[in-house]
């Protein structure tokens, strides 16, 4: 099994290596490869936090708010619960039930996490950073010309992890959950493929870089060429299919707790469960990344070519943007600090331990310290003067734009989950095969006509 994994990793590494020209340094390659992982893994705690706190507020509850860092008393509105979760899951006993198929039982969570992490490799996080000495840095692990196909194929390997987990658990609930999950994922992959095919038509490419480049400019006069405007139906179809692909509510039949306990991960505990749990969120983040890239302009900060890359990279413009960003940070962080101090007046009454100081600590750590740092940077440092600085600032702006869009889409995933009740299994299949696939076909033909007639 470890041999299998080693082979898999070696293959992945080879593909990663091939994605670069031979002239790229190993360190830069590692950085490029690490960016998607860094982004996606760091999105997990905020996602879990949004899920818990958002669901609580939607349901008129309070949500997690108690766990704190001893001494500092930081609760950060329940964000510290994630740390507590990690401690709990990591220190739990790794149980291997006797009745399971051990190889696949252990392989399934590893596979789910590996696949989830590999999928994001094709996403460009910003425009290529052109340095003055001719070196080009890509914030993209794999610049494949078949980028979206890599995404589709990798995410369909994710079906294996679910099916394997369900089957190897040797448990009726797990088996049923795995079957349901694979059925829904396979059905909705068709819809996903159909809506992505419209993107192929519109952009004339399967490379995600080309797709982002294809979203500059306008069509029909004033409408931006963002994917959501050129193919709104495709966007809706993709969102629905993405919900089903990630096994999220309303398509989370695989873990319908009223019927199947916990579905395919019924038999999993400790860190193996944590891997499934994290892989679910990673899958959501990656889907959100792909949706932002195909339909929401990718790393483009604003529609209508506002803050266009060519404008951003010029050093004087970059300096202007940087000044606005630093000033904005200073103002926002300062305001947050003041708000924390005001909030401290009521919060300190509630607690008897270090949590009563949380308002002050928060104000200092997340409010005044960053505000002062940003202010100092604004006053003491005039901003980048060289072309390199401009390129880096542009990259930061574009990365933030993509991160913002992704965060919003992740929130939409959570928002939908706490709004819509779960589908019945037959409803799921009817929706997929009898409504969405015909709609996708019609949409594909319509888009093809529009593309051929030159409207798009």
């Amino acid at each position: 099994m470890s041999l299998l994994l080693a082979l898999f990793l070696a293959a992945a590494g080879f593909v990663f290596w091939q994605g670069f020209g031979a002239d790229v340094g190993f360190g830069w390659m590692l950085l490029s490869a690490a960016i998607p992982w860094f982004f996606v893994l760091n999105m997990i705690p905020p996602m879990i936090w949004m899920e818990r706190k958002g669901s609580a507020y939607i349901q008129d509850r309070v949500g997690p708010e108690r766990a704190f860092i001893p001494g500092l008393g930081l609760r950060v509105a329940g964000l510290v619960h994630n740390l507590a979760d990690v401690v709990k899951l990591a220190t739990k006993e790794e149980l291997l039930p006797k009745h399971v198929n051990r190889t696949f039982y252990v392989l399934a969570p590893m596979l789910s996490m590996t696949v989830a992490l590999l999928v994001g490799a094709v996403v460009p996080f910003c425009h290529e950073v052109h340095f003055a000495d001719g070196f080009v840095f890509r914030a993209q692990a794999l610049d494949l010309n078949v980028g979206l196909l890599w995404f589709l194929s990798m995410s369909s390997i994710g079906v294996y992890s679910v099916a394997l987990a369900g089957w190897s658990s040797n448990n009726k609930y797990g088996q049923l959950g795995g079957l349901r999950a694979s059925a829904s994922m396979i059905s909705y992959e068709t819809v996903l493929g159909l809506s992505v095919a419209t993107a192929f038509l519109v952009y004339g490419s399967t490379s995600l870089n080309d797709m982002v480049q294809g979203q500059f400019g306008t069509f029909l006069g004033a409408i931006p060429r963002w994917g959501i405007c050129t193919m709104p139906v495709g966007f809706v179809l993709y969102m629905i299919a993405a919900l089903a692909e990630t096994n999220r509510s309303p398509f989370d039949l695989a873990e319908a707790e009223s019927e199947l306990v916990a579905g395919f991960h019924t038999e999993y505990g400790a860190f193996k469960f944590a891997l499934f749990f994290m892989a679910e969120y990673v899958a959501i983040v990656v889907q959100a990344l792909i949706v932002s890239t195909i339909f929401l302009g990718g790393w483009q900060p604003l529609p209508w070519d506002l803050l266009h890359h060519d404008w951003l990279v010029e050093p004087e413009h970059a300096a202007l943007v940087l000044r606005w960003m630093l000033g904005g940070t200073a103002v926002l962080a300062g305001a947050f600090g003041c708000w924390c101090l005001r909030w401290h007046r009521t919060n300190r009454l509630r607690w008897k331990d270090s949590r009563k100081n949380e308002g002050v600590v928060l104000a200092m750590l997340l409010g005044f310290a960053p505000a002062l740092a940003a202010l100092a940077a604004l006053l003491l440092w005039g901003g980048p003067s060289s072309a390199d600085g401009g390129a880096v600032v542009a990259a930061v702006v574009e990365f933030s734009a993509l991160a913002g869009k992704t965060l919003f889409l992740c929130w939409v995933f959570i928002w939908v989950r706490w709004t819509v009740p779960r589908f019945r299994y037959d409803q799921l299949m009817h929706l997929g095969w009898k409504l969405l696939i015909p709609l996708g076909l019609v949409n594909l033909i319509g888009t093809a006509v529009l593309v051929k007639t030159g409207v798009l």
Partner: protein
Amino acid sequence: MANAPSKSRGITREGGYLLEVVKGMGVTFSHLWKNIRTPENRRTVAYPEIRNPFPPRFRSVHRLTRHADGSPRCTACMCCATGCPAGCIHIVAAEYPDRPIEKYPGRFDIDMLKCVECGLCVESCPCDAIRMDTGMVPMPAFTREDFIYTKERLLSHEPQVAPNGYRPRRGDL
């Protein structure tokens, strides 16, 4: 049969299903926004720190009241012990050598494992010496002895006071 749910058209018949989802998302977001704006209107109470006061007539753990000079009001008349349906009050009378009210309880034990919180002791007391207005519920303990509330403990109980000043406010997470 006319009203039988048609499973094949369940979703397609509701042609505006997507619209309904969007409307539902509006509803959930309005709740989210309301709870961010006015957390003080949430029903949840942060329990160990904040306790909703019990209603005034709620029968909570007993306390023995005192005279102005601090001595117990109880005269060890045994009315409560006699009236107690559970037989959980044990009084051993003692005597002041020099006071107009000669008797006082040398021991006044309530076995909280037997007590049924009926309040008959309070009603039967002619001296207003025992009350059940502490706002406390009997605490769990590890030994049987810990459930026997002695005179000193009962005298130390205070009547229920208003909860501390914390109330959730706008923006409180």
